[in-house]
C-alpha cells in the first residue's frame, strides 16, 4: 500500500503531461502539422521518411462530384484528415468479384461507391474531426501485414508507438488490433498495448483496452505476448527520432507500422500522446523523461543509443518474472546425473527442432548406462528389421535390457533410427528437469547432448545469447 502512493511520483498524469511536457515542447505550429494528416505526410516525405503513399484527396463536395473512381487501386484506406482515435477510417482489401463499383472490407462485407460517397460527405461535414470542423477526406496506400504479426492480430495492422523526448526514445509500445477494437490499433477502443524493451525491441508486459487490464496471452488464444522480437527495431527508433527533428514536436508520440514489403513506414505524428503506454510497460514515464531532460544531443543515432542504453536491458528479468520461465541461450552449461551418483557438466545445445533430448553414447556410459548400452547393442536393432514387428514383439525383444525406460523411433536427416531411451536429470539455469533421453552416437558432433522441445517447456530461448 505504501508503494502504491510512493509510485505516484514516477508517473505522468494528464495534468503534468499537459503542463510540463506538451505546453513547453510542442509549439502551435508543430501541433498544427501533427493534427493535419495530409500536411504531416508532406512534411515527413520531404524529410525523407517513408510514409503510406497518398492516392487522392477530396476536400469539397465539388471534388467529390468530379472524383474519378476508376483510378482507385484494388486495396486502399480512406481516412478523415483531422480524424482522431481511429474514427471514420475504412480499409478495403480487394475488389468485389463481378462488381466494378464495389470493394471488400476485412469482414467480407462490400462497400460500394455510393457508400463511399456517403461516408466522404460525413467526413467533409466534419463528423469525424476534432471539434467537428469541416474536413478533407483522403485515400492512401493500404499497408500489408507482416507474417510475424499475423497470429497476434485481429484484422487491421499493428503499429508501434514510440514516445520521443529531447531526441531520445523514452518508451515504446506495440499496439495490436483485437476483435473488441474492430481491427483498430487504438487502446481506447479495446486494442492491446504491449510494452517493449527499448534496447532489444522485445515485448514485455501487456494491457488491453481502456480499463488497462493486464494480460499475458493474445485475446482468445493461448499465444503468449511477451518475448516477441520486433524486427527493424533500431530503424523504427531512428525513424521516430527523425520525425521529431522534422516536425519540431518536442514531446512526440510517433506511430510506426511495418509493411510486409516496405519495412518500417511512418504512420502518424501525435502531439498529445496517451498515457496508457506506462501501464503497458509497467513503468513510469516521469522518471524516464526527467533522466533525459537537459541532455544535449546533436546526432540522431546518439539519441537512439541513449534511449536504448538507459531504458532497456532489463527485458530478461522482466520476461522471466512475468512468464515464470527462464530465458536461456542456444548453448547452455548443464549438469547431468544418471544411474550412478556422478555429476557430469557439459555444454548442451538447445534444439527446438528436436522433439526429444538426446545424449551421446560415451556420455551415457559415463552416466552409468554402460550395461544398458551393452545389452542394447547386442540386439539387432536395425530399423529395417524392426519396422515390420508388432509392438508386442518389440517389447519382448527389449525386455532384458537393464534400466531401459523406453525406445524411440527418431526420424532425422540421417534417416530413421531406433534408439534406447533412459531417464536422466538435467540441471539447467538452476532448474532441475527430469528428462527422457535417447542415446545415439554424437562423437562427430560438437555437443554431446541436445535438449529437445519436450524438456524446454519452462524456458524461453533468446537466440542472441
Amino acid at each position, binding site marked *: 500500500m505504501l508503494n502504491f502512493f510512493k509510485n505516484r511520483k514516477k508517473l505522468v498524469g494528464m495534468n503534468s503531461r499537459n503542463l510540463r511536457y506538451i505546453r513547453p515542447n510542442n509549439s502551435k505550429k508543430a501541433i498544427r502539422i501533427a493534427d493535419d494528416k495530409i500536411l504531416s505526410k508532406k512534411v515527413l516525405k520531404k524529410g525523407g521518411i517513408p510514409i503510406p503513399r497518398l492516392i487522392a484527396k477530396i476536400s469539397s463536395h465539388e471534388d467529390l462530384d468530379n472524383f474519378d473512381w476508376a483510378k482507385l487501386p484494388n486495396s486502399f484506406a480512406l481516412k478523415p484528415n483531422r480524424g482522431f482515435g481511429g474514427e471514420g477510417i475504412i480499409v478495403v482489401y480487394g475488389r468485389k468479384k463481378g462488381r466494378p463499383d464495389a470493394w471488400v472490407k476485412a469482414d467480407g462485407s462490400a462497400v460500394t461507391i455510393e457508400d463511399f460517397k456517403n461516408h466522404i460527405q460525413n467526413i467533409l461535414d466534419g463528423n469525424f474531426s476534432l471539434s467537428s470542423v469541416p474536413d478533407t477526406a483522403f485515400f492512401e496506400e493500404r499497408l500489408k501485414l507482416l507474417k510475424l504479426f499475423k497470429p497476434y492480430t485481429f484484422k487491421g495492422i499493428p503499429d508501434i508507438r514510440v514516445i520521443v523526448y529531447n531526441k531520445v526514445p523514452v518508451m515504446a509500445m506495440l499496439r495490436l488490433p483485437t476483435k473488441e477494437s474492430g481491427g483498430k490499433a487504438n487502446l481506447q477502443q479495446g486494442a492491446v498495448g504491449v510494452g517493449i524493451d527499448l534496447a532489444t525491441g522485445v515485448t514485455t508486459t501487456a494491457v488491453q483496452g481502456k480499463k488497462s487490464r493486464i494480460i499475458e496471452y493474445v485475446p482468445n488464444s493461448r499465444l503468449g505476448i511477451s518475448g516477441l522480437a520486433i524486427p527493424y527495431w533500431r530503424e523504427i527508433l531512428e525513424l521516430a527520432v527523425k520525425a521529431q527533428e522534422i516536425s519540431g514536436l518536442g514531446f512526440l508520440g510517433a506511430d510506426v507500422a511495418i509493411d510486409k514489403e516496405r519495412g518500417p513506414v511512418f504512420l502518424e505524428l501525435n502531439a498529445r500522446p496517451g498515457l496508457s503506454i*506506462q501501464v503497458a510497460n509497467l513503468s513510469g514515464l516521469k522518471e524516464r523523461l526527467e533522466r533525459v531532460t537537459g541532455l544535449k544531443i546533436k546526432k540522431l543515432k546518439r539519441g537512439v543509443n541513449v534511449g536504448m542504453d538507459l531504458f532497456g536491458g532489463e527485458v530478461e528479468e522482466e520476461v522471466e518474472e512475468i512468464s515464470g520461465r527462464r530465458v536461456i541461450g542456444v548453448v547452455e552449461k548443464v549438469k547431468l546425473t544418471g544411474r550412478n551418483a556422478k555429476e557430469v557438466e557439459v555444454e548442451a545445445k538447445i534444439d527446438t527442432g528436436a522433439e526429444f533430448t538426446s545424449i551421446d553414447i560415451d556420455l551415457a556410459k559415463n552416466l552409468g548406462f554402460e550395461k544398458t548400452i551393452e545389452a542394447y547393442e547386442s540386439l539387432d536393432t536395425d530399423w529395417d528389421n524392426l519396422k515390420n514387428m508388432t509392438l508386442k514383439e518389440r517389447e519382448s525383444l527389449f525386455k532384458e535390457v537393464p534400466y531401459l525406460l523406453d525406445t524411440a523411433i527418431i526420424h532425422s536427416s540421417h534417416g530413421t533410427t531406433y534408439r534406447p531411451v533412459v531417464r536422466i536429470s538435467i540441471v539447467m539455469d538452476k532448474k532441475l528437469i527430469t528428462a527422457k533421453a535417447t542415446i545415439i552416437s554424437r562423437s562427430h558432433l560438437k555437443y554431446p547432448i541436445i535438449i529437445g522441445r519436450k524438456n524446454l517447456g519452462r524456458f524461453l530461448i533468446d537466440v542472441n545469447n
Partner: protein
Amino acid sequence: MHTHYLIDYFVFQGVPQESVLLILMLPIVATLIAFFRQIFGIKAFGIYTPSIITFAFLAMEGEVGFKGIKYGVAIFISVILVGMATRYVLKKLRLLYLPRVAIILIVVAFSILAILVLGGSMQRTGLAAIPIFPLLIMIIIVEKFIAAQLEKGTKTAFILAIETLVISLVGYFIVSWEILSIFILKYPWAVLLTIPFNIFLGKWTGLRLSEYWRFREILKKMQ
C-alpha cells in the same frame, strides 16, 4: 441581514440583490468545475454546460420550490435518453450534422412538452409549472451530448452526461447553501480568492483522483 456596503450600493442603484448574488456565485461554480476536472478527473461537458445547468436548476427551484431540482434531474435524464434514442433511429438516414441535430432537438422538444402535459394531467402541477427558460436550456444541452457521442462514442458521452449532472448538482447545492450566500453578501471581495486558487489548480501537476484508479495496476506493481 447585514450586507456589505458595496452590495447595498448596487441594490440602491436598482440592481436586484438576486442578480448580484448569482453573478458573484458564477466564479465559485466555475472554480468548482475546474477543481473537479484537475483534482478528481471528472470531465463533464466543459465548463459551460455544467454551470448553465447549475443555474437552470436554481431557476427551476425559484418558481416551484425545492421540488424543482427533482424535476430538473428528471428532465435532464429524459433529454439525454430521448436524444440518444433519436440519434440511433436517425443513424440509418445518414444525414449531415446540423440537420440531424435539428431533428433530434425537435424530437426532444416534443417529448419534453408531452412530459409536461402528462404531468399536468396527472395533477403534478409542479412539473407543468417549471419556468420555460431553464427548460429550453436543458433541451439545448442535447447538442453537447450528440457532439460528444460522435467524437467519443456513446459510452463516453453517457459517462460525461452523468458527470455533468453530478457536478451541476454539487454546484446547485453549493450555490443554494444559505450560509455561503450570507457570507458572500457580507464579504463580496472574498470571491476574488478563486483567482489564486485557480492559479494553483492551473499549476497542479499531481495525479488526478481518477488516475489512481486508471494506473492502479502499475502503482501496485512498480518497484
